[in-house]
């Protein structure tokens, strides 16, 4: 695409290539040049050979073409009447300056409790009189089209976290308590009850759940204990915490009771054996296909209650099918919840967690936007059920038109999303993911920022609808008056259209944005815009692919920490250095290293599929 005078200036030392046919006698202007940001793709695909090309800076001084040449022709000495001498490349590449980076960004972020690793900032120390510390986070952008401006050597921006702003006391807006109850044995039987640490489930509840749903032929339960993880399972449609509200509390307030050591797993196929999933399926042996410990996945050592549904043929890709399965399973879960309400006593509580929504007046205000799937079929989510991750009382975001809906952080972590969503297994965010949402968790625990809330926005099927919801989102964020925003998504491909549009709608309102997505090799962004210059790649897989290992490439604490560091830097007005063109783990690794140096902490990165026994499927298809 033709470029502006400003872009031409930035790229003065990059090769001059004509974007379009230009006739002999044309005096070259920025409008004649292709944007150098996309050259690597063009060179790679053999469309462009830059040998002998003059730089843009050399031919903007009244040079005229002596020949009519076509689009994508490099401007060489033999087709212009004159050109300026090349300037000595004085500017040291930003990367080098960055590498020397020093330390201490004041106010280190509290190290993430549970998790691991993080990554994302390059710190640049300019020692001039008083210390000026600048962070330059490195974007990871999956080889994307996303035009990331080349790193402009950072101008000394305001000294770090100067206590300039008026800072008020942190304010606790609301609190919620999670009471944990231990379960170490699950037995299927005639009655649903909890005795000591044993959960009994009435098997007939499953049949009843199925009977109430016309499309569900059968629903069967079984219990998979840790010694039986090498059990075959159909594709996993969801992993859910088993939790209930005490009294009449609504989500995000009062007290929530949750069973530890056990989770609900939903699986489904059609009568003729088609997996209820799209873009891959995690069917196979659990120990080979479950990325243990991911926020959305099962933790090693937990007991899995598997609820397996068989539905009408052809209903796997229509909305009523997955909805029927989830509703049938919830009939079973609700019976457990009722037992929890009645039978559990405070003596049985093994752990109590008080969760607080904290606002920090005077700190940078940020918002988290989570894009959730809303294309229909299983690409749907029940929003705001009565019970944590329930069905009753909830509204599917598809029915809400996928428009942005606001939630507070405690609602998110109290199960306000019941996820039906089923894009590729490795990047899908299951219901449990929201219950343990790492970015929300890290943001409310970060003393440097003031998290105003969380917005969920659906990803509709049609492009026109995507832009419709995107514009609404932009307006909503504008009215929140925030200093920065995160936009996260699950999956890749179709939903990247609105994902990047969300970033644009927010970015063009002058709000710095950091995006989170699985991109890497297979999920490289198909669209982009100039606001997509700060991206965190959720990829963990070795090959950078959707490897069908459940939750492998979902947002983890290490990603959240990198994202926070990156957003803070961006809000401070610093430039994010463009990623390397081809996906490489090195970017994340160097970001992690820089954060470790800056914060003086050690980040441990989560494991990937290589830590699991190799499945036949993975061997054949991926690794």
């Amino acid at each position, binding site marked *: 695409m*033709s470029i502006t005078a400003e872009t031409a200036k930035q790229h003065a030392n990059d090769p001059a290539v004509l974007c379009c046919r230009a*006739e002999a006698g044309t005096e070259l202007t920025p409008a004649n040049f292709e944007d150098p940001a*996309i050259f690597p793709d*063009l060179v790679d*695909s053999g*469309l462009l050979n830059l040998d002998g090309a003059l730089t843009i800076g050399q031919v903007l001084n009244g040079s005229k073409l002596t020949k009519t040449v*076509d689009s*994508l*022709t490099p401007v060489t000495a033999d087709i212009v009447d004159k050109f300026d001498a090349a300037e000595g490349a004085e500017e040291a590449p930003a990367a080098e300056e960055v590498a020397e980076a020093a330390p201490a960004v004041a106010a280190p972020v509290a190290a993430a409790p549970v998790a691991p690793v993080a990554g994302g900032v390059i710190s640049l120390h300019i020692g001039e009189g008083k210390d000026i510390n600048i962070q330059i986070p490195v974007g990871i952008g999956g080889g994307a089209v996303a035009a990331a401006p080349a790193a402009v050597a950072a101008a000394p921006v305001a000294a770090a976290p100067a206590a300039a702003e008026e800072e008020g006391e942190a304010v606790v807006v609301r609190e919620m308590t999670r009471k944990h109850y231990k379960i170490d044995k699950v037995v299927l039987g005639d009655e649903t009850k909890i005795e000591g640490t044993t959960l009994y489930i009435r098997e007939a509840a499953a049949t009843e759940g199925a009977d109430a749903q016309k499309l569900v032929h059968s629903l069967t339960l079984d219990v998979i204990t840790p010694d039986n993880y090498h059990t075959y399972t159909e594709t996993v449609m969801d992993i859910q915490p088993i939790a209930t509200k005490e009294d009449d509390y609504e989500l995000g307030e009062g007290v929530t009771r949750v069973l530890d050591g056990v989770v609900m797993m939903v699986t489904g196929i059609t009568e003729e054996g088609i997996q209820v999933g799209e873009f891959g399926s995690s069917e196979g042996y659990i120990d080979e296909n479950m990325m243990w410990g991911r926020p959305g996945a099962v933790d090693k050592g937990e007991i899995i209650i598997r609820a397996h549904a068989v539905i009408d043929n052809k209903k796997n890709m229509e909305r009523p099918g997955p909805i029927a399965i989830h509703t049938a399973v919830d009939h079973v879960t609700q019976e457990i919840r009722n037992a929890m309400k009645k039978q559990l006593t405070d003596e049985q509580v093994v752990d109590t967690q008080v969760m607080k929504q904290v606002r920090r007046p005077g700190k940078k205000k940020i918002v988290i936007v989570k894009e959730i799937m809303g294309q229909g079929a299983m690409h749907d989510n029940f929003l705001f059920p009565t019970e944590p991750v329930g069905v009753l009382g909830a509204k599917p975001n598809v029915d809400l038109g996928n428009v942005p809906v606001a939630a507070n952080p405690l609602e998110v972590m109290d199960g306000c999303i019941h996820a039906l969503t089923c894009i590729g297994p490795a990047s899908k965010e299951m219901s449990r993911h929201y219950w343990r949402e790492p970015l929300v968790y890290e943001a409310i625990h970060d003393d440097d920022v003031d998290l105003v809330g969380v917005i969920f926005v659906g990803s509709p099927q049609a492009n026109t609808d995507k832009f419709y919801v995107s514009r609404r989102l932009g307006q909503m964020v504008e009215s929140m008056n925030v200093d920065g925003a995160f936009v996260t998504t699950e999956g890749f491909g179709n939903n990247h259209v609105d994902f990047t549009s969300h970033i644009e709608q927010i970015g063009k309102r002058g709000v710095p944005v950091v995006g989170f997505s699985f991109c890497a090799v297979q999920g490289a962004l*198909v669209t982009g815009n100039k606001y997509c210059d700060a991206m965190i790649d959720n990829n963990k897989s070795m090959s950078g692919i959707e490897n069908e290992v459940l939750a492998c490439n979902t947002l983890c604490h290490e990603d959240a920490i990198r994202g926070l560091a990156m957003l803070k830097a961006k809000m401070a007005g610093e430039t994010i250095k463009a990623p390397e063109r081809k996906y490489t783990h090195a970017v994340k690794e160097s970001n992690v290293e820089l954060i470790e140096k800056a914060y003086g902490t050690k980040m441990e990165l989560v494991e990937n599929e290589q830590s699991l026994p190799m499945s036949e499927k993975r061997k054949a298809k991926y690794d």
Partner: protein
Amino acid sequence: MENIQMLLKQGAVGKPCAPVVKVGDKVKKGTLIATPTGLGVNVHSSVYGEVVEILEDRIIIKPDDEQPEEYEKIAKGTNLEMIKEAGVIGQGGAGFPTFIKADAHLDHGYVLVNASECEPGLRHNIQQIEEDPAPLLRGIHYLMEIAGADKGIIAIKKKNRAAVEALDALLKDDPAIERHLLPDIYPMGEERAVVRECLGIELEPDKLPSAANAIVINSETVYSCVAAIEDQKPLIDKNITVRGMIEGGNEAHVFEKVPVGTSVGALIERAGGLDSRGYGEIIMGGAFTGKSTTLDAPITKATGAILVTRQFRDLHGAKVGILVCACGGNLERMQELVKKYNGTETHVCYCKQAAEMPNGTRKCERPGNCPGQVKNNLEFKKAGCEYIIIGNCSDCSNTVMASGPKMGLKVMHQTDLAMMAIGHALYRTLKVSKKVDQDLDVVDNVEDNETVE
């Protein structure tokens, strides 16, 4: 003779008119049958006959067997009043009311006559000039007086030598009017392109020619103004090119003074009938900006052409990317074509210069001058498209071709099936210069397209 259907909304812009006749009324050619309710112009009957039905959007008239030449004249008045009374609208595209456009209050400005007939394959405008150029010049003088202009410029493609020579013979005695030769590329008839070519002023997409102290008016519209002023004739008939998959060959059939309200089918029959070997679709208007239509649809005062295209080939659900620009069809039109080709719409890109206007339409920021397309092609490729369909101008199509095929994208142009049907080169690469010498006898460099290795 078939029934005539007079649409209450004759142009693409404005509001529908309100009927002023009722069922059973006898009408003559020129009888006023509907008047504006908002932006719009009078509608007059184009035939002698009887009103047989009034529908929400049209008045249906059963014509008499006898159709005398005479017509009911409009009242005399000032020239501007007569243009208004005659219901003249622009006949080059959207059908904007001419009396509003002409009443421009320019400051020693310009009347620019768009005689580019830019949609490929059309003939009726140029033929009208070739046959009788004198009224065009008289009309320009009327419009100059109305609009406050002291200069007239006729923009016409250099390839139309006979028409240019006919004009030149008259223009040598008329110092107030000159002609400006245009290259044979698309688009030259976009009104801001006409302003740029004639006056050297590049207007922003949201600006009207008045920002360049000019009005731009299609040549056939000028003739209609002359008829209104000199002959008190309302706009009830117009010239139409019918072309494409027609029995007997693909030459242009130009029909003059076709009554407004005649059906597409009647015109095709008059030309020879649909090609018995089959056809793809029927387009009302040009191949770039026209829309698909049906045999029973009536022509309006703004209709210029009926094109019958070649058959669609079956892409068997192949993934197709759509590149929308302002020069060709909008997204809906492109989606219609993808469906007709049996492709699967996979990704949509917009040309960088296709600026969206407040009413949702798009206008090109620099008509005919490409902003580069390779980034879109990369997107299509990443989205897995096998084909892309484009509606771009000559220059942009050329740019798409510079990278698309090398990336393995199969490029189709929105106009392909119409171009094949009329025997016109497909819009792919550009071999002609965007500049032409204003001397009719200087042969321009049309083949200097060498790519430097």
